[in-house]
């Protein structure tokens, strides 16, 4: 139900249940606050939001954050009495926390320049507003922070002011704290787990160029989902800030993944690649220093939407003075992957260029040889050479973390025939491309081949690079093998063109060498059904039936059937026996 009230002479509409502060904010009237947060129940602790309310002829000074709006109410936000009240509040706050910028600014606005009293502790930042307490208890549900003691010794902190394992390190308290009084200190162990180059919050837009550009929730990091998982779904009321603040009401925690059955005539498999896991090459000490990062992590670091807004910084927050880039991590290596990942040389050169350009650091590239085939690639290589990057021909052998945190990269310089070692601030591992870990499952699902490396097999390496041996299933991009962006785009376009060709033609030509079931002989035992790599056999009315459109004619089912109820057309038992007898008759 809508109600009408007056704020500073202006008539405004409000919903029942809204506070005066909320209505004023919506109406564009500024009221200073410190202890207010839209996601939390108001407490009226800082007293800064006081206003004068005139109701039924009586005037009173109230905190607008707790005062419910009522019909006919008249609100005045800047009367002398209000201003005087706020000034007094700020005098006291400034006396308690003389060095907090937010309070200094507010105080200055209200003409308070000097604190009337001397502070007990000039470094005090906490104004005991309790926002953090409310966040920790009401939103996060961790119940770590609370008030203790009373009067002038009142403090906020965990029970007995001791370190507690109940703290999940979510950081909600630091975000809501108006004065910056709380800092999260990650312990050394936690630092490595914190994925400094990973997403910063549990809800985030995957990357700036994401399509569609909508945020996703990382359910492993989200407080609410973690609570739900911890309690086996019994509790799901923690936090909820994102839902509360989303004006479009786009966030629904109950949404589930859905499975849709869609009948199609063709499928393009474009499942992509997985970044090589650098832990599989332990000689490069990945994980032992935050300054050893993979190529993909560097991409995030140098991205203007990344955690450093594109500045290239070490974990210590300073630009590196020297950077080593190691080629062929997880590629061309008999211990990991024998194949060349094709893209790493070019991205490593690009990253060398970026480091030089943005920081001017010394860059050392450890490479076996540079693979830069293609238009403008070799030219780019030359340009990077001219930019003063040091190229060391020889694969990086190992990276060790020095006691001072610097990184020692060793390798053999094949040109000089000697072992070289450089000490750098940052190491970028040129990790290669690997097949998706579930490639075997996907290959089984579609009845397509999968090589030893896990990349899907095309029908012919030269002449049919996007087709598979299963009609109607096409490959696009790196699921078939490592390739760079222009090649992936071309490959994907080719796959799309194949599908379009099918659509235009409207019919499919199949090989006549397929298997056929003689229903009179089939007893329906089904031994043949799991044999078919193309799931072309099904039991229909109790007997096997081959879908000739799916069958590729390998004949494995024929050899499996004990009854001889399946014939491989053009390779029948009779024809093969005749051949056997024929060739043996004449020699």
């Amino acid at each position, binding site marked *: 139900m809508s109600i009408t009230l007056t704020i500073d002479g202006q008539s405004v509409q409000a919903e029942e249940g809204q506070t005066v502060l909320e209505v004023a904010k919506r109406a564009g009237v500024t009221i200073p606050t410190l202890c207010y947060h839209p996601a939390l129940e108001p407490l009226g602790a800082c007293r800064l939001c006081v206003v004068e309310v005139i109701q039924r002829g009586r005037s009173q000074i109230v905190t607008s954050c707790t005062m419910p709006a009522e019909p006919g109410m008249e609100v005045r936000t800047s009367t002398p009495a209000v201003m005087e009240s706020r000034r007094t509040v700020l005098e006291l706050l400034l006396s308690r926390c003389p060095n907090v910028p937010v309070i200094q600014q507010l105080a200055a606005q209200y003409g308070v320049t000097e604190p009337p009293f001397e502070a007990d502790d000039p470094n005090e930042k906490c104004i005991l507003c309790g926002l953090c307490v409310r966040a920790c208890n009401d939103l996060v549900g961790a119940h770590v922070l609370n008030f203790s003691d009373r009067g002038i010794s009142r403090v906020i902190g965990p029970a007995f002011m001791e370190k507690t394992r109940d703290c999940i390190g979510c950081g909600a308290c630091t975000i809501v704290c108006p004065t910056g009084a709380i800092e999260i200190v990650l312990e050394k162990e936690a630092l490595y787990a914190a994925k400094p180059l990973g997403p910063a919050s549990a809800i985030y837009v995957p990357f700036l160029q994401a399509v569609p550009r909508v945020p996703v929730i990382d359910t492993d990091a989200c407080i609410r989902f973690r609570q739900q998982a911890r309690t086996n779904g019994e509790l799901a009321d923690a936090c909820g800030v994102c839902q509360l603040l989303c004006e479009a009401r786009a966030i629904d925690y109950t949404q589930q993944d859905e499975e849709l059955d869609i009948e199609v005539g063709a499928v393009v498999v474009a499942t992509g690649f997985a970044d090589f896991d650098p832990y599989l090459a332990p000689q490069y000490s990945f994980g032992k220093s935050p300054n050893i990062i993979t190529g993909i992590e560097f991409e995030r670091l140098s991205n203007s939407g990344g955690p450093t807004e594109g500045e290239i910084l070490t974990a210590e927050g300073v630009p590196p003075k020297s950077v080593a880039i190691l080629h062929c991590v997880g590629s061309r290596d008999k211990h990991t992957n024998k194949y060349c990942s094709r893209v790493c040389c070019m991205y490593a050169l690009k990253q060398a260029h970026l480091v030089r350009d943005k920081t001017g650091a010394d860059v050392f590239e450890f490479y076996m040889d540079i693979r830069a085939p293609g238009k403008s690639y070799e030219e780019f290589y030359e340009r990077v050479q001219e930019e003063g990057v040091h190229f060391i021909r020889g694969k990086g052998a190992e990276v060790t973390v020095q006691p001072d945190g610097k990184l020692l990269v060793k390798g053999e310089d094949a040109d000089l025939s000697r072992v070289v070692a450089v000490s750098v601030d940052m190491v970028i591992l040129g990790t290669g491309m690997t097949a998706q870990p579930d490639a075997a499952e996907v*290959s089984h699902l579609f*009845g*397509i*081949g*999968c*090589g*030893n490396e896990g990349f899907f097999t095309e029908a012919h390496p030269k002449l049919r690079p996007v087709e598979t*041996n299963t009609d109607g299933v096409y490959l696009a991009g790196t699921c078939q093998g490592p390739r760079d962006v222009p090649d992936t785009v071309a490959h994907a376009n080719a796959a799309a063109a194949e599908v379009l060709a099918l659509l235009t033609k409207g019919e499919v030509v199949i090989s006549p*060498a397929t298997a056929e079931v003689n229903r009179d002989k089939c007893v329906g035992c089904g031994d043949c059904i799991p*044999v078919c*790599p*193309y799931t072309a056999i099904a039991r229909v009315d109790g007997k096997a039936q081959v879908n000739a459109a799916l069958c*590729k*004619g*390998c*004949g*494995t089912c*024929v*050899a*499996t059937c004990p009854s001889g109820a399946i014939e*491989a057309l053009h*390779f029948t*038992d009779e024809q*093969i*026996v005749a*051949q*056997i*007898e024929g*060739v*043996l008759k004449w*020699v």
Partner: protein
Amino acid sequence: MGVEFEPRIIAFMCNWCTYAAADTAGVSRMQQSLNVLPIRVMCSGRVSPEMVLRAFRAGADGVLVMGCHIGDCHYSNGNHRTIKRMPLLRNLLGYTGINPERLELQWVSGAEAPRFVEVTEAFIAKIRQLGPLSQEVME
């Protein structure tokens, strides 16, 4: 001492790997014996125990079953059944007194023409040493 024994070997070859390798071996003029009698099938998975036994029955002294390497099967995994069937069949031959060495399963990819020659020549030599199957079956 009569005419030297010339083994007759039925070789089942899959269309995509071994048959292609045999073809390449021929086109490349690689030296080969004439004892191998090829029977082309689409996949080594098509080779049923009956076919192998029939080859012996029809007078083959040895039977080679050849196809794509595991993981490289043109049909993804047709040869997975072959690799399971053939050891059982070999054992069965042995249980009834036929030397199991007369049946061999070999993977030869389309790119392995030299290996095709190597494998078949070694098999021919082995069967030559074992003598005619009729000695074992008909005696």
